[in-house]
């Protein structure tokens, strides 16, 4: 059956279309060229010039895995069991951890209702990948995928400290992608999670790891080279050292040079853009960071914008979260060392607009957004749930598109923070084309989803239809229609059909000989068999709802 979207005002940066009114034809879940007149059109939606974009893609959102599930548990004072016979009896309030860390069903529903059709879990602990996939498998409506964490696992650190050749490292990285069914590689506080287990409390970029005697810079070199050489699309996803520390912008700038010009993505860069100026020794270094992104073409970044309210932060960076636990609100936290593989830290935060640091964090994120020139290299994230829940994206989009709205919000901030930000001098307002770039075309290109994030012939028919409105928050909060793989799944902001999406992976070829040494490591030191570490396609598909889409890349 062919579905026709008539008179669509298409905003599709991947195909250089900015408001072109055209018809879109869909068959078998794909966008097709205009069919012959003899072919029957089954369903017609006359859009009368409504805005049409590809489904949005969240390239960094903590939606599944051990630390997210701990985060779901962590605010019982705000929770009440939802009465399923009265589905609306429990409405999540701003302080409810369901709001910050929704259950898997709500995660899928809230995403699709906003016109998002894919989300990527950016911190899959390799040893915990099975759980991450179970949770993503229980997340309806959207496509999923993950980035596997390396760079603090003892197997990799042993390889590096023993001067293993790059080929061995490449094979291990590729093996990890296969074993964990992921599409990218992430490093969190390179070397730092491991160093914390040896009682270190900070790990600087050029400081030797106290046990392995290698530097985070060396870890970044080896991993960025491996990711590049095995030929996956997604650049190394880097959560820099010194997250949240005043003065950390220098680490961030130095990190940009650590890959010797190879592509790297610096994630939630807002948390890594802090200076030490002013009475409070905490200032914005957004200008320095944005300037460096503008001039370093091999660098991409997502922002990790904070928005005010209660959330629960969940990070692999147990070293820095152990420090952050001092400012937890409510005062509690979960810190874990995990399986000689990684760690995690889960800390509730309440970001307040009258708090100097929080207010400045808010401004710093927006300064970065508005000061990076190229929307293909800066991505719209809140590091869900760490800066704010993903459900606040429409609000964030309005802040970017509406200077008056933004400045009104700025005027309500802590006054000392206002004095330390140049936000009001930034006149830029994002266009719909730029928003479509940073939420559709650019993430698809970055991750290597060739048939997503655009509306060209052959693309998967993940499509969002909006009514253009002056209030961009209202516009992006409630699309008129959302199609997932060609099926109409949302109408007037309500889900009308439940679908399950797929799991995207990248599985580059590699020398399976590397497994001999990995198996020996498991047998000598681990508490599970190597074969049980690996996840099969069948296990992803388990209940027949999900399936793996592997992307041949490079």
């Amino acid at each position, binding site marked *: 059956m062919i579905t026709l979207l008539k008179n669509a005002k298409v905003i599709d940066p991947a195909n250089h279309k900015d408001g072109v009114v055209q018809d879109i034809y869909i068959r078998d879940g794909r966008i097709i060229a205009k069919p012959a007149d003899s072919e029957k059109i089954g369903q017609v939606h006359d859009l009368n010039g409504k805005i049409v974009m590809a489904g949005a893609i969240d390239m960094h959102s903590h939606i599944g895995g*051990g630390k*997210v*599930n701990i985060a*779901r*548990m*962590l605010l*019982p004072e705000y*929770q009440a*069991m*939802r*009465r*399923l*016979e009265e589905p609306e009896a429990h409405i999540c309030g701003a302080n409810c951890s*369901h709001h910050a*860390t*929704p*259950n*898997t069903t*709500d995660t899928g529903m809230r995403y699709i209702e906003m016109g998002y059709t894919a989300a990527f879990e950016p911190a899959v*602990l390799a*040893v*915990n990948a*099975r*759980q991450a996939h*179970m949770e993503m498998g*229980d997340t309806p409506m959207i496509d999923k995928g993950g980035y596997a964490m390396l760079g603090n696992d*003892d197997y990799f650190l042993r390889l590096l400290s023993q001067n293993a050749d790059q080929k061995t490292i490449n094979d291990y990285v590729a093996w990890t992608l*296969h*074993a964990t069914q992921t599409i990218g590689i992430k490093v969190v506080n390179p070397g730092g999670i491991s160093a914390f*287990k*040896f*009682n270190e409390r900070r790990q600087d970029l050029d400081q030797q790891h106290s046990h392995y005697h290698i530097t985070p810079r060396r870890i970044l070199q080896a991993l960025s080279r491996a990711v590049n050489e095995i030929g996956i699309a997604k650049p190394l996803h880097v959560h820099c050292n010194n997250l949240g520390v005043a003065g950390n912008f220098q680490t961030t700038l130095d990190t940009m040079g650590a890959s010797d010009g190879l592509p790297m993505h610096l994630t939630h860069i807002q948390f890594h853009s802090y200076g030490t100026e002013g009475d409070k020794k905490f200032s914005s270094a957004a200008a320095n960071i944005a300037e460096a992104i503008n001039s370093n073409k091999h660098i991409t970044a997502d922002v990790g914008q904070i928005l005010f309210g209660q959330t629960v932060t969940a990070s692999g960076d147990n070293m820095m979260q*152990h420090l952050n*636990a001092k400012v*937890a609100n409510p005062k*509690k*936290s*979960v*810190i*874990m*060392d*995990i*399986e*000689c593989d990684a760690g995690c830290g*889960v800390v509730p935060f309440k970001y307040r607009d009258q708090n100097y640091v929080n207010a400045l964090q808010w401004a710093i994120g927006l300064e970065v957004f508005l000061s990076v020139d190229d929307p293909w290299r800066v991505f719209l994230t809140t590091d869900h749930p760490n800066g704010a829940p993903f459900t606040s994206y429409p609000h964030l989009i309005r802040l970017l598109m509406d200077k008056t709205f933004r400045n009104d919000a700025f005027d309500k901030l802590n006054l000392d923070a206002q004095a330390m930000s140049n936000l009001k001098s930034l006149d830029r307002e994002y266009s719909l084309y730029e928003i479509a770039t940073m939420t559709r075309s650019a993430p698809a290109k970055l991750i290597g989803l060739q048939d997503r994030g655009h509306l060209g012939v052959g693309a998967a028919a993940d499509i969002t239809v909006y009514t253009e409105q002056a209030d961009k928050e209202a516009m992006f909060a409630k699309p008129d229609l959302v199609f997932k793989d060609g099926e109409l799944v949302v109408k007037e902001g309500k889900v009308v059909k439940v679908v399950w999406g797929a799991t995207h992976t990248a*599985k580059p070829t*590699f020398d*399976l000989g590397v497994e001999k040494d990995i198996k020996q490591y498991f047998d*000598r*030191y*681990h*508490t*599970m*068999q190597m*074969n*049980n570490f690996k996840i*099969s396609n069948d*296990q992803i598909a*388990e*209940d027949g709802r999900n399936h793996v889409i592997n992307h041949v890349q490079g």
Partner: protein
Amino acid sequence: MTIQQDSMHACPACGLLCDDISADAIARQQFSCGKAAKFYARVTTGVSPQVAGQPASLAEAVRAAAAALKQAAAPLVAGSSTDVHGARALVRLAQHTGAAMTHINASSTLRNMKVLQHRGWQTTTLTEVRNRADVILMIGTDVVSHNTRFFERVVWVDEAMFTEPAARQIIYLGGDQLNTQPGVSPDGRAPEVIACASEHLPEVVAILRALVMDKPVTATTVAGVAVSTLKTLAATLKAAKYATLVWVSKDLHYDHAELTIENITETVVALNQKSRAMGLSMGGSDGDTSVNYAHTWLNGVIIDAPAWESHDAVVWVNSYSPQAMPPAGTQPVIVLGAPDSIFESAPAVFIPVATPGLDCNGQQFRVDGSVTLPLTAAKPTDLPTLTQVVALIEAQLQGDLA
């Protein structure tokens, strides 16, 4: 990549999930663990469904189960002794029928959850302990009563990356009738045992925490334990490279034991100000971690304790505990469980289902929470899975509605 077929099975008889069980060991019934031996010796064939104690077809039993659920105003899903897949099915059944859901280990699970949810904690996992722990403090437990092979698989191992396993210091603090023999090192070094009855652990652990925090303690003994002994223990923990404080919530079975657990975990928090230490919660059985976790990601909240008196029907799942039955009084009981269930009185409906790891495949969380292992059918049978039976009951309920 070729995924090699693993000939080893992971054993779900306890929360340790030892995944080195060979088909050969199962065939010969040779195990170093009594729980595994008992699990793999189970006979699950030749049992048909029953309605009111009489043999019935699967279709008849499904109809009877659906009818009982339809009549109930407030059903309860309980026992819930299953794996992740079973947990998903039970959560769905509870949603469809408006039932509450609990687990056979809810009371011990909730002791831990109260601490996690209201205070947080700092914990580690088995491979970290295996490779790093130089001091292991067992509080109120021998662990081996729950996880037989703990010392074999985690403590007295041949090799570790960052410590000398045979030199580890094992200390038992309190507990009742502990088996401390497994704490003897391979070269015959006896563990230190600081004896006190479980019921005195609240005050003993509180003093230990105070000493670790350098608070003044004026008493010279607490519950018969010399404070000087606890001072030495505090110093040992502070000097350790990676002290591991182990507890089993089931063994802390007195009122408000969560406060003892909190004192354990807050001792860890205090130690981590200057040195490294971590907590380790052991024990676990009947898929308790899997069910609580899956319930959390599917519903957004943890499992709850049962309030038996307020329910008028029970769906009872006992796949890993065939002898377990709900307390008498709440009727009717629909057992979707172990084929080798032992009934004192026949339940209203009994549908034998496949046990993950024995009759069918599955997935189970290990007790330390970060690792999930695939369960493989050690002795495959054609029994329906819990997921399949729940789907049949749901279809029947929907059909009845239509």
